[in-house]
């Protein structure tokens, strides 16, 4: 009997295929296409303290094997989210990972306090790839000190046993160094990778295509970047669990991230192209792992790191 179970920090999941934050809303729309209980977890769209309109349009540009987005964290704010989305997700029986984002260290602290006593949540994803208004709009995850401060704020305020998954950007010189900082600050696991900053210029209007000028690149185009980042971080800290993501569109792609060191895999852009991609990937991954002779998912995590000469 193949064992598909996995864990991140103290949280356990029946299978390793999750949605990616910002790519599944709060699960309502996808629930029309499959049962959310089929997922390892629903990772909700990063929620902020207050309602947020997000950026102006155009917000999207398709690129070769990917897309650029500049949504600007549109959302209802934590209070409405806790009132409407969390009870609904609990009623579905879904395993829930809540993703939070802040504009200041204090935002992260307040968000953690608001989530501390909410029941039915398996883990907290802390999206620190956001502009820090207290530091000239510099992204938290781009600097060791600010990355550390945001995670420390969550750690101090979350209490209890809710695992913290720090979501990092690959747009840094050494992602392993940032990873070590956030783990030292109290992160139990890491989400790798967020989108890669990019730009498309419309050659008809001869201006940046997106209203926000730059956007986050996602999709299969960035998968090698994700594999590299996961591999490097797993190599530096093999004991820290990784939620891998970045351009996974097939079971084979998910397997690749697992071999690099991911214990679970989030599916993002593939869902935009196919709402049932997560179900297809889950089945393909399981079949692939069995075909390679693994008895459990856990045996395959980081398998690409085995020393030369070993089978």
């Amino acid at each position, binding site marked *: 009997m193949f064992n598909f179970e996995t864990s991140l920090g103290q949280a356990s999941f029946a299978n390793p295929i999750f949605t990616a934050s910002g790519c599944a809303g709060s699960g309502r*729309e*996808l629930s029309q*296409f499959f049962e959310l209980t089929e997922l390892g977890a629903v990772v909700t769209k990063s929620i902020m303290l207050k309602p947020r309109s*997000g950026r102006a349009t*155009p917000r*999207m540009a398709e690129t070769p094997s990917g897309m650029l987005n500049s949504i600007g964290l*549109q959302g209802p704010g934590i209070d409405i989210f806790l009132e409407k989305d969390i009870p609904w997700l609990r009623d579905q029986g879904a395993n829930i990972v809540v993703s939070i984002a802040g504009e200041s260290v204090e935002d992260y602290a307040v968000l953690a306090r608001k989530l501390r006593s909410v029941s039915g949540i398996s883990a907290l994803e802390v999206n620190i790839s956001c502009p820090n208004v207290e530091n000239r709009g510099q992204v938290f995850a781009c600097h060791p000190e600010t990355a550390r401060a945001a995670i420390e704020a969550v750690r101090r305020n979350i209490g209890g046993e809710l695992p913290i998954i720090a979501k990092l950007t690959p747009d840094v010189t050494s992602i392993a160094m940032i990873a070590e900082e956030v783990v030292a600050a109290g992160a139990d696991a890491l989400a790798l990778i967020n989108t890669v900053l990019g730009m498309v210029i419309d050659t008809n209007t001869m201006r940046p295509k997106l*209203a926000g000028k730059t956007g986050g690149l996602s*999709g299969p185009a960035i998968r090698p970047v994700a594999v590299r980042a996961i591999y490097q971080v797993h190599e530096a800290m093999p004991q820290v669990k990784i939620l891998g993501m970045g351009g996974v569109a097939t079971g084979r792609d998910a397997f690749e991230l697992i071999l690099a060191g991911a214990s679970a895999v989030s599916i993002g852009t593939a869902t*935009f192209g196919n709402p049932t991609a997560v179900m297809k990937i889950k089945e393909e991954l399981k079949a692939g792992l069995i075909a390679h002779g693994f008895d459990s998912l856990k045996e395959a995590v980081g398998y690409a790191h085995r020393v030369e000469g070993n089978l």
Partner: protein
Amino acid sequence: MMGINKNAVQVMAEIVSNKKVGAYNHIVFSVGDIANHAKPGNFVAIAVGGANSAMVLRRAFAIYRTFDKGNSGGLLEIVVAPHGAGSTWLTNQAPGFKVDLIAPLGTAFGIPTQPVRALLVGGGYGSAPLFGLSEVLKNRGCRVDMVLGASTAMKIYAPLDGKRSVNSLTIVTEDGTTGLTGKVTDVLGDIIETNEIDIIYSCGPMGMLEAINQISSNFGVVHQCAIEESMACGIGVCMTCVLPIKGEDGVVRMLRSCIDGPVVDGDTVIWNSKRTIPDGTWGAH
């Protein structure tokens, strides 16, 4: 906030027919039960490029019309302008090929309960969903006038049976190659007054919809329009296709054109807001 169209399902749909009509392709899909649930104004989202395609996002198309063929299954028709790589790929697929299709998606044109006098305005292939709407309105005893516009004759989509479904058809082209010379908005005022129009339905480029809304507002006529904005998923999860729309509570919110649209009341749209978030929008800062 509205939810996803409750009837939306994902199917592998076989192309039954694919024919060039002027500058466009008229494509018919075998879609089974979807045909019974699609309403004028709804759209489909189709995966393009085949397996391993570098085009990772679906393409959205307004539904031209649907037919319930009983046991042999329902048919769904669209009109495609091959102007990008994805739409061009679709127009190159032969009958027998199966595409991954999700439908029906989005809101539909509101149908009045009383027989009213309706004016349908289409720009380019935006005329397609108006013919199905026209049939529904006629069955409700409405008078239906139609105005179609495009840059040139080749870009007017007006099939013969579609023409028969309306009481009057006015065609306007910018280059004068067919019908009157000018823009659809040049003729709307006269038709609204002469035929005592109660409601305008429109589908076409955003600039045209905005210009129509200016006219409908001046005349105090209700205007329902099918809006568009670059869309990644079509099912409400990506938040890219938003537009500032005023709710019944007077608050402007960035709403998804795939869920709260494509058909919206023209007076609720904050027009000409591309590249900006209007002041006072919920959550703006």
